[in-house]
């Protein structure tokens, strides 16, 4: 397996998760990830040395997601989903109920993320991917010293909105 193939298989899903949450649209996210790997392919082809490919790929994906958002303006649904209306919907079986809840939960998360700044959105996704503050800073271009504060603020905002829709962390 070539170094490119190895990186492609290792990072594909991680990058896709970031792109999906950034642009809120799977089709665009797939394009972003393919474009990111094209950049990697060309960089490796030119003999460029990439010290930390994981962070480098995240950074390219983040920037391409910002470009995509700029191009398409608003991809994420801006209307918030009311949890009580979700629960009132009837489902024919237990499995349907689970699927419906998952879909509605996804819509709710996308709506909450859409209300945040792209940088805060990225920090939350990177946080859920267990990234270090250093990786978050390098990916988003934020100063390392500001990551903790910005992340804390984003987590507070997410928690507040989740609570409004019936999701309690504790």
């Amino acid at each position, binding site marked *: 397996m070539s170094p490119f193939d190895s990186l492609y298989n290792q990072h*594909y899903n991680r990058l896709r998760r970031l792109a999906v949450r950034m642009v809120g649209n799977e089709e665009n996210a797939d394009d972003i990830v393919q474009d990111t790997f094209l950049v990697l392919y060309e960089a490796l082809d030119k003999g460029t040395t990439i010290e930390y490919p994981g962070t480098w790929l995240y950074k390219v994906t983040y920037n391409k997601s910002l470009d995509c958002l700029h191009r398409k303006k608003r991809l994420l649904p801006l209307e918030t989903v009311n949890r009580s209306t979700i629960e009132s919907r009837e489902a024919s079986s237990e499995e349907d109920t689970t699927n419906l809840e998952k879909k509605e939960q996804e819509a709710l998360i996308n709506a909450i993320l859409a209300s945040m700044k792209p940088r805060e959105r990225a920090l939350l996704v990177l*946080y859920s991917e267990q990234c270090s503050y250093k990786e978050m800073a390098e990916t988003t271009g934020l100063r390392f010293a500001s990551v903790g*504060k910005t992340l804390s603020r984003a*987590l507070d905002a997410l928690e507040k909105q989740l609570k409004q829709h019936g999701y309690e962390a504790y």
Partner: protein
Amino acid sequence: MKPIDTQRLQAYLDGELSPAEAAAVEQQLAQCATSRQHLEQLRQRADLTKRLLKTPDVAIPPFTKKSVKRRHLGYMPWIVTLAACLAGAVWLLQPFKVEEKAPSSLYFYQEPAEVDANRPYVEQATNVLLISQETH
């Protein structure tokens, strides 16, 4: 005792403090029940965030260089493509363009020639040039 602030507790939870800083936080936690409770809440919030934000893995598609390059054109608005075509057509037609502009005026210019004092004036050599105003 003053409770530890959220940002510091968050950094402690995320393993972002130096060993000395982490030890200081642990010392404070041992003495402050409010901070311990707050830390537990942050832990639960982190778990919920990670669970909700994670999207499922998909089957990895093969990487195709050509398909990606072709898709790039999809981003290009049609107006840019049209403009590029027009610019190309204009450039192609450029060699067939004929310069039709005539000089706006003509006049004679007599170049100074060597004068031979022993010969009549009418036999003196003169260089008369027909030049246009643009070249002057």
